[in-house]
């Protein structure tokens, strides 16, 4: 049994690492955006904090979101829609192993993006902070994969196999922009600033910024609670989608 979990995770990681549309884009886009908007804009600052420091937090959040939403959203939708999940369900695979493996991929690629971003920030952006703070931010960013995994699974449980990647883009990119992950939320129009608290991306970004001692809106605990809430709601939606699939099977 345990061996099946280990093999499922290892194989899923190999599969996704070789899938260039996943591995290249989830790693390259956040790094590229960070170069454009943070490193190239070096002299600008937001609330007395350099862009390279501020956007390290928000592009870290952006990167983790992408790695997770694509692995779960597009991954599950394609395998569910084109029959592969059914082959696995007919086999003695422990049913949870499938989802655990997607989680392992999300965490691994999330950790990879965050680590590379930190290296860029430290080497080219002149970002300096105590080791404890680096570690805390790294941990908080990577842990963000958990609530977004639930959101991705909800998408993957309902989206069609051919449209899933588009659906993920249509949710991921606007959510990142409106949540203040591409540029500081204070620069965005007031209307978007009012919308932001309804987006999980906003709360994720605010938690990472708080670790940088950037003045944030509301309390960190409040943002954590919001993310937990979003995670639970979408886990529920995903559960409904998955049981709808099973009912189609057993019903």
């Amino acid at each position: 049994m345990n061996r099946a979990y280990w093999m499922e995770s290892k194989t899923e990681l190999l599969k996704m690492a070789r899938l260039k549309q996943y591995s290249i884009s989830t790693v390259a886009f956040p790094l590229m955006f960070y170069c454009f908007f943070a490193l190239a804009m070096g002299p600008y600052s937001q609330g007395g904090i350099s862009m390279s420091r501020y956007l390290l937090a928000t592009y870290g959040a952006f990167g983790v979101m992408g790695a997770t939403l694509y692995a779960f959203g597009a991954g599950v939708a394609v395998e569910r829609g084109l029959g592969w999940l059914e082959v696995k369900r007919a086999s003695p695979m422990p049913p949870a192993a499938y989802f655990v493996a997607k989680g392992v991929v999300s965490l691994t690629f999330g950790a990879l993006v965050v680590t590379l971003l930190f290296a860029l920030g430290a080497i080219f952006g002149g970002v300096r902070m105590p080791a404890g703070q680096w570690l805390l931010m790294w941990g908080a960013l990577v842990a963000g994969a958990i609530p977004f995994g639930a959101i991705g699974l909800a998408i993957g449980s309902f989206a069609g196999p051919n449209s899933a990647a588009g659906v993920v883009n249509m949710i991921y990119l606007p959510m990142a922009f409106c949540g203040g992950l591409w540029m500081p939320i204070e620069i965005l129009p007031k209307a978007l600033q009012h919308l932001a608290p309804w987006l999980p991306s906003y709360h994720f970004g605010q938690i990472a910024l708080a670790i940088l001692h950037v003045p944030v809106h509301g309390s960190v605990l409040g943002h954590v609670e919001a993310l937990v809430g979003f995670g639970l709601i979408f886990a529920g939606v995903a559960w409904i989608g998955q049981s709808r699939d099973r009912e189609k099977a057993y019903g």
Partner: protein
Amino acid sequence: MPVAELRGVTKRYGPVEALRGIDLSIAPGELLALLGPNGAGKTTAVRILLGLAAPTSGEATIFGYHPASRQAKLRRGALLQVGRVPETLKVREHIELFSSYYEKPLPIAETIAAAGLAGIENRLFGALSGGQKQRVLFALAICGNPDLLFLDEPTVGLDVESRRALWARIRGFVARGGSVLLTTHYLDEADALAHRVAVIDRGRIAAEGTPAEIKAQTGTSVLEDAFLAIMKENGNALEEVLQ
């Protein structure tokens, strides 16, 4: 005890009755071919025996167990029609993964040999030909050393050579004592492989017997003619049968 059994199974999808009371059993060591026109209920019967669908009424068992139970899953393997298989995994990686699901799998090398994959085990699935892809799916079905195999249209879209190669693999499995439920549109395939044939039409078993019995019943010498005779007798429009 039969290795797989359907007893009085009906299946209703909304207003559609896919199965209207089917009794079917597979004996140990037997290859049973399930034939029938599109929409006859073949796939529904297979899905119920795999635990992927539940009967509306009646009972399905695999080795006496519920078809979705772990005990049932450990003793069977399945080659299903699938739209897309992950392409960025090597043949060997696919086999190693599925082998890890079972408690007593075949050694990897043995599975590779039995499925005719020697020499291409380190290729990515996406780089294989159609025949090679079907042999990988066959490998995934047999890697757990099952006693019962489900083969749903295993040779569809294959060239003659690849079909014959897969037939040889299937015969090899039966020769080692395995049981098989085969669904196919190719009646020569059923004729060549099956010990027994069940013809299913509009949710009911229309005829059952050895290929020779079925041919004798209908006074034909080729299973394909026998099949058409049964369908015609059963009141099916010929156009519907031929498509």
